[in-house]
């Protein structure tokens, strides 16, 4: 079960700020989220991939790889993508 | 209609043709391939184009190429002496007084002019003397220290 931190703007779809969702990878977690809270996936994905405007924090490591493995206590955050100058 | 100019650059006699509207900066870089002096603003506000004209540092973007007639010009290409770096160049390297390096030729020319007039400047005199050269990378700290170090080196070699 991953612990997914829901972005504030999506909380009216999920009803909570943190939810536990099963899944072996981030993609599976998002699919299961969509089953429980329809409409969430289209806010996070574009054309079957993570939205180019988002990145993930998986156990506090930033990544854009949705096949990243998820362990029972993994924390997932959805964050805007950032770069630098 | 182009003007014929005869001048001395880094100790060598040089001739070139130029239009009246061309700046010395443009001619040095584009006609004579002396690309060491740089264009930063083209209106005399950044000093990246500093060269010596008849012994004084000038913004070459504010000098018309025709003004070089019978003048003596020194550019960054003439500062090292046959493969031996000038103390300023050596001190800039040892003191890490450059980051992107685009302002460096201009600073070295301005600092050389300063030390030739005032071999033992105070920190304030260095800062005033280099106030016409902009650097956006270094914050000037290491540049000032490099000029101080070069002044020290030159003092030691004289004594």
């Amino acid at each position, binding site marked *: 079960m991953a612990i997914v931190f829901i972005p504030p703007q999506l909380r009216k779809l999920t009803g909570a700020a943190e939810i536990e969702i099963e899944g072996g990878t981030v993609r599976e977690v998002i699919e299961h989220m969509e089953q429980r809270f329809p409409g969430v996936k289209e806010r996070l994905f574009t054309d079957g991939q993570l939205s180019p405007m988002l990145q993930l924090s998986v156990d506090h490591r930033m990544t854009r790889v949705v096949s990243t493995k998820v362990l029972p206590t993994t924390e997932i955050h959805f964050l805007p993508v950032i770069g630098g100058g | 209609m182009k003007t014929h100019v005869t001048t001395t650059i880094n100790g060598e006699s040089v001739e070139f043709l130029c239009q009246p509207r061309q700046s010395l900066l443009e001619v040095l870089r584009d006609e004579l391939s002396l690309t060491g002096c740089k264009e930063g603003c083209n209106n005399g506000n950044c000093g990246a184009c500093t060269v010596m004209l008849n012994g004084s540092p000038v913004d070459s973007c504010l000098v018309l190429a025709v003004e070089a007639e019978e003048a003596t010009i020194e550019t960054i290409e003439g500062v090292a002496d046959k493969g031996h770096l000038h103390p300023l160049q050596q001190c800039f390297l040892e003191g890490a007084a450059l980051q992107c390096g685009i302002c460096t030729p201009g600073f070295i020319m301005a600092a050389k002019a300063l030390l030739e007039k005032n071999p033992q400047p105070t920190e304030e005199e260095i800062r005033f003397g280099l106030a016409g050269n902009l650097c956006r990378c270094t914050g000037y*700290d290491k540049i000032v220290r490099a000029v101080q170090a070069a002044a020290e080196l030159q003092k030691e070699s004289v004594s």
Partner: protein
Amino acid sequence: MSTDTTTETPKEYKVIGTRPIRHDGADKVTGKAVYTSDLHVPNMAFGAFIRSPHAHARIISVDTSDAENMPGVLATCTSADLPSLWDKGDNLGEGYVNYAHLSGNILARGKALYKGHAIAAVAATSTHLAEEAAKRIKVEYEPLLATTWVVDAMQKNAPLLHDKLITHTLDDEPAKPSNIAEHVRFEKGNIEEGFAAADVVIEREFKTSTIHQGYIESHVSVALWNEDGRLKIWTATQGSFATRQQVAAVLEMPVSQVTVTPCEIGGGFGGKISIYEQPVAAILSRKCGRPIKIAMRRDEVFEATGPTPGSFIRVKLGATKDGKLNAAEAWVAFDAGAYPGGFIAPGCMCALSCYDIPHATVDGFDVVLNKPKTQAYRAPGSTHVAFAVESVIDELATELKIDPIDFRLNNAAKEGTRRVDGPVYPRVGLVECLQAIQNSDHWKSPLTGPNRGRGVACGFWFNAGLKSSVAANVNADGTVTLIEGSTDIGGTRTSLAMQLAETLGINAEDVIPQVVDTDSVGFTDVTGGSRVTFATGLATYEAGLDIQRQLVKQAAKLWECDSEDITVTDGTYQTKDKSLSFKELAVQVSASNEPIVGRGAVDAPNASNAFGAHIVDLEVDPDTGKVTILRYTACQDAGKAIHPSYVEGQMQGGAVQGIGWALNEEYFYDDHGHMRNASFLDYRMPTCYDLPMIDTIIVEVANPDHPYGVRGVGEVPIVPPPPAIASAMHQATGIRFYELPMSPPKVWKAMMTKNTED
């Protein structure tokens, strides 16, 4: 003393931590280094733009015929020559880029969105001719109302820049278009609860102006569209692969047909990641069959490249009487310029990043308006929010009569702190930085005299990881050539060479670093985001280990033993009866064995988490409002300073940019939306004479994600100066300044007003 280093767990290195002369040094001090404008490509011709004189206008027609008929004119180019790209975009690793917007920014389509917006371009046999010809291009405009202040642009009746721009948000999107391109929100805990429990609550509003990165080299490119359909570009860029990707997307050609050669670059700071003239030079080259050079003039750089956003920020902080922060609320509006993408998300994520606050919300808005499209300027967004948040922190500390460094220490983010945007910090060095400045000679020296004040502030930037590739070839004489693609803006080729040298157990001088084009090295993300020494360093380390593995195998052949019998310690390869240094062994094996080529390719973890804390002493002249910086100390956690001189240089340079941001720099806009100070004369950047020495303290709290502990250093130093200076100004004058810059006219007026009121 200029610098101090505090290392958490000192380790003995042979090369790392020393100060060798940079490998490209001789070229740079003798004027031999080749910057893009120094290039003379055979048969080269020159391009120039015509740009909108209006801040906002419909383009009715563009007629290039008069220009085309001039002798010496070779070709013209308008937006009709660029493919139409409807809403295509990409994540370039440095944020999302919308190619339709990028193309529209390169050459305006349908509307001019800011004064200086490029409309068309012309190629001619000289730059002077090109500029004259550009003036002959006839453009008919229908001027429209313009807006250059972010709050005005957000209003319902504001002139609309884009008919179809709907606010991007994870929430429900609005039905109607507006100038609000994005709304982000971050939340932690419950702010009602937090503020209810606070003993002191302070709320303030802040404004910052548009600022330019101010690199001394302008934007320059040479493009050659070859007869075989391949496009070669030489350019001043922070990222040759990013340039390649953008050019290929805008021209709709495969990346494999575009080669980008990065020349030496004269500064970037985030402003030379996006493309401007490259596709236009390419099209002109295709049309006339000659290489085309375009070099922007300085006024074009100011008006038509990528300054950093102006902003309006409201911050409310609540604390208990013993100085514990318990609630924060921030409302942040950044202007993005003419197209979306003003760094609102990183700005919001940085706002409270220095503190452990249980309850907080941050709302951020990315707003388009009639100014050039903004770009990153060193820690984009962080300086704006730090000015606001650190200023309120200072007011809280003053009100609660708590020392400003102690206040920050009591609330400082550390390992395990949960950020407002969600993730938890790993090991970070903010506390160590605050302690270092508290123990510094600067802080302990009293400041006396009238009109003088001292201020402190801290700052944060994530620092990027992203992708880098290197190759490293062992030469016949035992030296190693390092092939890398990170354009060198500040000495990074040397810091990479040093890391490879340390890994192999050789001297830094025995590594020859080369920055190469996009055909000659694997994909490498930009030089920016404070990432090169960290991420390309990681790739370099991997290449070093790869070389070691290969050399062990070669040694085993040479010594007729098993690889397992060979140990490597500090660059010495040994069996029980043989021992050779790296160099000796490399010389021997190169004669007879296969070449040794090391390889490293990484997608480095993002966020090495850089923190800094600065102290400033200043004096205000009450007769003129001019501020003199008396003393400055910049402290930063570098993780590990590979080459301390260049780390100090980043800290000093960034601090001085922040000082300029605080005291003088701004875009002056008139009522027509025109910038009135587009030159280095009136866009007042600090000179040598404006400053004292900048002392530095390097703290080293090792980054667990790098073998040598490296964190990036390039960006954070620009963040603390504006709030530190604002705090010092308050001490010096009794006045709180809520607007940047705190330039002499504003300071003088505020002091006069206060004197009258007093």
